[in-house]
Every structure is written in structure tokens, then in C-alpha cells.
């Protein structure tokens, strides 16, 4: 073994190495849906099933993306950050599938019905709003866009990642007829993830702080 390849052990490397696996795992639900579509095992109402599955995975991916930061703080595995953009883009991809299922399969481009549906039915409007809010996030996800916006503005824009899942859970909750247990679980998880951001440790001077201004 050449001596030059010796390096200090870098646990963060694992996150880079595992990234392709995470990528494949995120494709899993879509692959499963395609498989079920091809084998005709989506049940009596395939469109309904595809809508449900893509919607649920949008929510799950949004929550998993929000999990990265608290998990880093908790474990010190800072390499996790390498996965965050990819996870966020998967959330967006499932949202696109969900939206297209609605427009193409469910409504088949019946724009008058679609527009009426969005305007008249709050749960559709909320879901649609969440989808629209995801667009700028996906659009500004590249390194070039981060540079162009500047870190501060980019971060401010990407705070929408907190609002979108809130709208997503509301969109889910609003269409449930009586059994609220599923949206309630999503709400609970989302609350924990959002609450974890409230008490982020602030850099604070140790010991008694001297008066800021001279008397």
C-alpha cells in the first residue's frame, strides 16, 4: 500500500460513501409504485392509490429532510449534511408526482374543474400552495444559486421548508373523514422537529457578562 494514501481516519467519509445507497432507498417507493402499476396490483382504484402513496411520501421526505439538522446536533455526525439537499429534492420529486397524478390521472387536464377544485376546496388550495412554495426551493437548490443569492438570503428563503410540511399535514388532515390518527402522527413528528429548532444553543459568553455600554 503506498504510504501517501494514509490519512487520518475520517468518519464523515461514510456519509459520502453511503449517499448512493440513500439515493436508491429514496427511489424505493416510486419503484414499488411502478412495479405495482405494471403487475396490476394497485387495487380497485389505482389512481386513488397512487395519489395517496405519492402524497404520503412527499410528507415523509419533507420530515426526513427536517430531521437532518437536529440529528447532526444530537450525534455530531456532520456528514449528514451531504444528504440534505438530495432528500429535499426527493420530497420535491414526490410532490411533483403527486401533483401530476392529480392533474393528469385524476382530472385529466380538466382545467375548469381543477381551478374550481383549488379555489373552492380548502384542502386542495392548501396542498396546491405547499406545492407552489416548493418550487423556488427546488429552483434554488444548486450551488450556483446559493452563490448567486448569497448565504443569508438563501437561508431566509429556505425557511419555507418549515412552512411547507405544516401545509402538507393540514392538507392531509383536512380531507380525513373521521379517523385522524395518521395525520395526528405526522403532526406530532413535525412538532418535535420544529420544536427542536426553537431551543438551538445560542453562543453565549461564559461567566458574568460585562455591561455592554460604559456608564
Amino acid at each position, binding site marked *: 500500500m503506498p504510504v501517501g494514501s494514509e490519512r487520518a481516519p475520517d468518519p464523515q467519509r461514510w456519509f459520502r460513501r453511503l449517499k448512493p445507497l440513500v439515493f436508491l432507498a429514496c427511489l424505493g417507493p416510486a419503484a414499488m409504485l411502478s412495479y405495482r402499476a405494471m403487475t396490476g396490483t394497485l387495487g*380497485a382504484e389505482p389512481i386513488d392509490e397512487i395519489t395517496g402513496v405519492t402524497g404520503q411520501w412527499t410528507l415523509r421526505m419533507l420530515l426526513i429532510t427536517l430531521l437532518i439538522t437536529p440529528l447532526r446536533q444530537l450525534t455530531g455526525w456532520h456528514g449528514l449534511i451531504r444528504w440534505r439537499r438530495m432528500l429535499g429534492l426527493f420530497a420535491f420529486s414526490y410532490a411533483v408526482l403527486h401533483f401530476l397524478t392529480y392533474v393528469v390521472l385524476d382530472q385529466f387536464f380538466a382545467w375548469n374543474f381543477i381551478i374550481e377544485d383549488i379555489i373552492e376546496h380548502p384542502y386542495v388550495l392548501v396542498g396546491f400552495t405547499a406545492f407552489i412554495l416548493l418550487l423556488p426551493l427546488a429552483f434554488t437548490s444548486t450551488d450556483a444559486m446559493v452563490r448567486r443569492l448569497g448565504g443569508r438570503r438563501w437561508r431566509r428563503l429556505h425557511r419555507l421548508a418549515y412552512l411547507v410540511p405544516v401545509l402538507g399535514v393540514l392538507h392531509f388532515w383536512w380531507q380525513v373523514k*373521521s379517523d385522524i390518527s395518521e395525520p395526528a402522527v405526522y403532526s406530532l413528528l413535525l412538532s418535535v422537529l420544529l420544536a427542536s429548532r426553537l431551543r438551538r444553543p445560542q453562543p453565549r459568553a461564559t461567566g458574568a457578562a460585562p455591561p455592554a455600554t460604559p456608564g
Partner: protein
Amino acid sequence: MLINKPADLRPSEITDRRYFERRRELLKGGAAAAVGLAAPGLLALSPAAAAKIKFEQLKRSELSADEELTPYESVTSYNNFYEFSTDKKEPAELARNFKSRPWTITVEGEIGQPKTFDVDELIKLFPPEERIYRLRCVEAWSMVIPWVGFPLGNLIRSLAPTSRAKFVEFETLHDPERMPGQRPSLFGGSLEWPYREGLRIDEAMHPLTILAVGLYGEELPGQNGAPIRLVVPWKYGFKSIKSIVRIRLVEQQPVNTWQAQAPGEYGFFANVNPDVAHPRWSQARERRVGDFFKRPTLPFNGYADQVADLYRGMDPRKLY
């Protein structure tokens, strides 16, 4: 001391009354049935497969719709039956071994004498016929189902209702042991049990209103409301209460389960009406299960000619 003395006969060895009573038929029925009789243990392993009651030589009612049937597979795998699960795919699995016999239905209230029927006795008293009906769910999907049933009016008439019988109230079995959806969950139950429904007496007596005991020429599967359910084809599906154990004739308009659950969304009448949207979604169109394109929903689910007269003079907006 041993109190539990083992019985000479294990329950699994007792031949079900249904098989006993049909023993001659079964013997004629060939090898499979013969194996069943010789080894009741085998039967216990696959009760659903062995026990399916078939309705032979059914007369097709003239009130039947002449439309393409929704496949048996879809009718029996896509069910709103919260007594088992709020998921539409799960009741088929969870109700697979639902024991729907023996089963009794009590009819009481404003009639000459309260009466309890065994479901098979009812089937003998009121020979069922085939009724192909459209079914429109409040969730904007629909099916065409060949029910096997008899007019509810025939049963009610035979029991001499009093003049105070203005409404009919129905009740589903409440048995969390057999209906897992009725067990309390972490977030509270999904509905108030037992499930209740109601009809005005003229709706109940209408010839289109039937008590169904089968579909596709066979007994009702558990997920479709075995062994006996209501079918009111011009109303949203939730009115067609399943697995009925009690029918009560009453003077006051009853409160049905969904109306109690969300009075702003579900009413007592719940007549199919494309012009009155559900507060959360449109009712203008529906998807026939198996179709790709949606189709327009018809007033009274296409039964306006037969039933619109029942509601003459009433505000259709109050009929949701």
C-alpha cells in the same frame, strides 16, 4: 383441583348447523363437499371457501340497471366499512373470517309485535332476487353491483306497522371482538358505535329499497356487510348500512351516525345530488371504479324518475 374437565367433544369437531342441514345437498355436491363432511377439521381451516352460500336460479328484477358490472374483485376489495378499518383495502382482509351465521335481526318499535328473525329464516320468507344497482359513494366513486336481496317494504308490511311508524332506524352489530375497527384507538374511536342509519317510512317502503343478503349470486362477503345490509341506490353509500342486527320503527326522525359525526357535511337524507357539493369536495362528477375518465353524477344517482316524487316540495339543498 381440576375444574376444567376436558369435554368429550371439542368445538372444532362439531359440524356447523349449516352443513348439517344441507348434508344431502352437500353429498350430491361432489368430492369436495364429501371431504368436508368427513373431516370437519379441514372445513374449519377454510370456512370461507367451503361455506359460501349460493343463490340458485335468481330472478333478475326489472328494476335492475342495464350497465356494465363492476368486477367482483373490485366490489369485494374496495370497501368503506369502518367497523373493520378506515382504510378501504383492509376490510377485505380483516373480515375474511367474519362469522355471519348464526345471525338474528330484531324488528321492533311501532309494529304489532317485536320479532326476531334468523337471517336464513328471512331469506326463506322473502325469496331474494337479483337487483343490479348503481352505488355512488359520497367520496365521488361509484360501482355497479348485482345485489341479491328483497324489498325492505315486504318485511315491514308483514309486521303491520302502526300509524306512528314515521321513520325506520337501523343498527349494525356492535362487537369489537369481531369488528376490530370498533376497538378504541389511541386517538379515540373512528365513529360512535353502533353505526346507525335511518330512512323515512316512505323511503323504506319504496320498491327500490332492498335488504341485500348477497352479491354476484353468492352470500355477502364480510367486507360488504354480511349477512344482511340495506341498499338504497339513490342515496350516498353510507346510508346503505351493513351487518344489520336491529330495525326499529319510530315516530321521530333518527340521527344517523355520519350526521352525528359531522352535521355540516352529512345529512339525514343524503340523496345523490351533483349540484350540492360536499363542503370539502365536489359531487358534480364521479369515477366509476375501473374507469379512467370521470363521468357526470346524475341527480338521485339516476333514479330520479322513480324517487323524485318522494321529495316534491322539499328544498333539495336540505336533502344532502
